[in-house]
């Protein structure tokens, strides 16, 4: 167990190191060179020259990389000349709001997908199974932005039930004070995960259903409700732990789209705005944060899986 976790941890560190190398390469591929790219088109030649000397962009690449890592470790992700603020400050403002959105979407997705997947497994090959499996297949193939647009067209424009735009505000509490406006963004982000989670839950539950202990419990006359709750649900839940950790990259991508469809003031919208306005410091800083989150997610998934399922530890 310890050896497994240690190996997994070393791998995670190597991957984060790899990500910093990729970001470093992209910095040097920026149009007009790193200094021009990071300072923006309006900086004067003198300012660019000063920036190059100050930040060591005239030194050998390995030295530059060392400085870059040193800055990252100190939490300095760069300075956005677009907003005239440090990237860390910008992320500090927007990241919590994104976490709220993603957290709510995950909660909704799990609450819907787990019972749905179990229902599909227990009544597999029934009409209800076919309909819901088909629906989740379509939802899974659907681009997130198209889902969001359809929801806006239906609920906001045709039926006027909900606002088409996400709540605006600088803080988490400001965003949460408009629960009506949160509904469509959360549902959009949740729908894609529901499709993926329920498909997964279905096959996981089908595998559990044929296990001997379920058959034994049935033979002993244990009520079906207890079998479902105590044996089926608990054992089918194990892979869900992994799934949540590994779905993080897809969810981050989905959050960027959702936040730009609904104009939700989170980190995804910040990243999208930066991409369209060529605000490279924000793009690169957020990329490091997103990638670190992804790596932590899959590391955590593996650790939790080993904790929940003793078979992994022994293997």
């Amino acid at each position, binding site marked *: 167990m310890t050896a497994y976790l240690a190996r997994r941890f070393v*791998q995670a560190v*190597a*991957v*984060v*190191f*790899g*990500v910093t190398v*990729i970001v470093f390469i*992209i910095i040097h*591929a*920026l*149009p007009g060179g790193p200094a021009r790219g990071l300072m923006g088109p309006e900086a004067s030649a003198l300012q660019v020259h000063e920036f190059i000397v100050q930040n060591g962009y005239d030194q050998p690449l390995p030295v530059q990389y060392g400085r870059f890592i040193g800055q990252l470790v100190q939490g300095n992700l760069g300075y956005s000349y677009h907003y005239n603020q440090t990237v860390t400050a910008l992320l500090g403002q927007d990241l919590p709001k994104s976490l709220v959105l993603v957290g709510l979407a995950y909660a909704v997705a799990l609450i819907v997908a787990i019972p749905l997947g179990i229902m599909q497994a227990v009544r597999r090959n029934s009409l209800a199974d076919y309909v819901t499996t088909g629906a989740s*297949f*379509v939802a*899974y*193939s*659907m*681009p*997130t*932005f*198209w889902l969001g*647009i*359809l929801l*806006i*067209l239906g609920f906001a*424009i045709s039926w006027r039930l909900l606002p088409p735009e996400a709540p605006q505000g600088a803080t988490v509490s400001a965003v949460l004070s408009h629960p009506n406006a949160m509904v469509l963004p959360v549902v959009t982000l949740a729908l894609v995960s529901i499709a*993926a*989670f329920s*498909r*997964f839950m279905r096959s996981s539950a089908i595998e559990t259903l044929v296990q001997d202990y379920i058959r034994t419990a049935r033979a002993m006359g244990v009520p079906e409700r207890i079998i479902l709750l105590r044996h089926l649900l608990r054992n089918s839940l194990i*892979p869900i732990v*992994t*799934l949540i950790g*590994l*779905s*993080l*990259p*897809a969810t*981050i*991508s989905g959050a*960027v*789209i959702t936040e*730009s469809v609904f104009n939700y003031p989170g980190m995804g919208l910040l*990243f*999208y705005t*930066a*991409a*369209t306005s060529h605000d490279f410091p924000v*793009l*690169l800083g*957020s*990329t490091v944060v*997103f*990638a670190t989150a*992804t*790596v932590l997610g899959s590391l955590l998934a*593996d650790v939790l*899986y080993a904790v929940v399922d003793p078979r*992994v530890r022994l*293997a």
Partner: protein
Amino acid sequence: MSMILAGEPAPEVPGAEQTPAGGTVAAGGSAWRMILAVFVRNRLAVLGVGIVIFMVLFSFLGPVFYHTDQVHTRLSLINLAPGHAHPLGTDNVGYDVLGRLMLSGQSSIIVGLSAALLATVVGTLWGAVAGYVGGAVDAVMMRVVDSVLAIPPLILILLLASVFKVSTPVLILVVALVAWLAPARLVRGEAISLRTREYVQMAKAMGGRHVWIVLRHITPNAIGTIVVQATFEVANAILLLAALSYLGLGPAPPATNWGSMLSDGLNYIYEGKWWLIYPAGIAIVLTVVAFNFIGDALRAALEVRLQER
């Protein structure tokens, strides 16, 4: 421990192509016929193939029969509702929407297929070499894959699209840069199991060069997995291109694709101009679903073949 990821095909289909004892060339042929039979029995797969053929004919042959001017903007013909002259109306600069849908289809399909092809070739070679060579080379090559994979796909593609000036070849390259990772991982898994096979050992013992073994023995024997994955990659590539263009980082105006059309049409979402939104959106969803159907059916057909052997 196996990594389980939604949407990713079940990896590890060992010995996909191993000829059974006493098997001949004819046996190999019938195996492929059997795959075809299973595939055709799957109605969703046939539907998927039908949709893809329709989309290709519509986009590439359509303009031959349905002439429209997709070069000159006409401000007198802006946002016309569907009617006799324009079956799907006109857009915000006067282009015929039906004709635009065909033109967009061409670039969506070309970028989708080219990116998927490029990603599959690069990914396959990368994975085959890593798995075949093993050891430190494998570890380094796979950490490179893991590192790129750690950056969420949309984040990476937005980053690349904002750094490089976007044109069709750049777009293909950028989408492929995101898409080569999954085939690389899958083929590596195959290569690890294939390299211990007798015929590979034999080829090595007879002095076969490594390049020859990777190209002639490892890659062809993983072809089932590769083809299945490539099909999903086409769906993903079309989706990524649509998302990128929807977000406004697609090709610049005279060029277009379904995502760009959707992005332009959304400016009129409150004015009830449905023909600017639904046709492009439906085209994206249909094509992506079609390729996913085909991929699912191919995978199922491959698994059946393994079971019946």
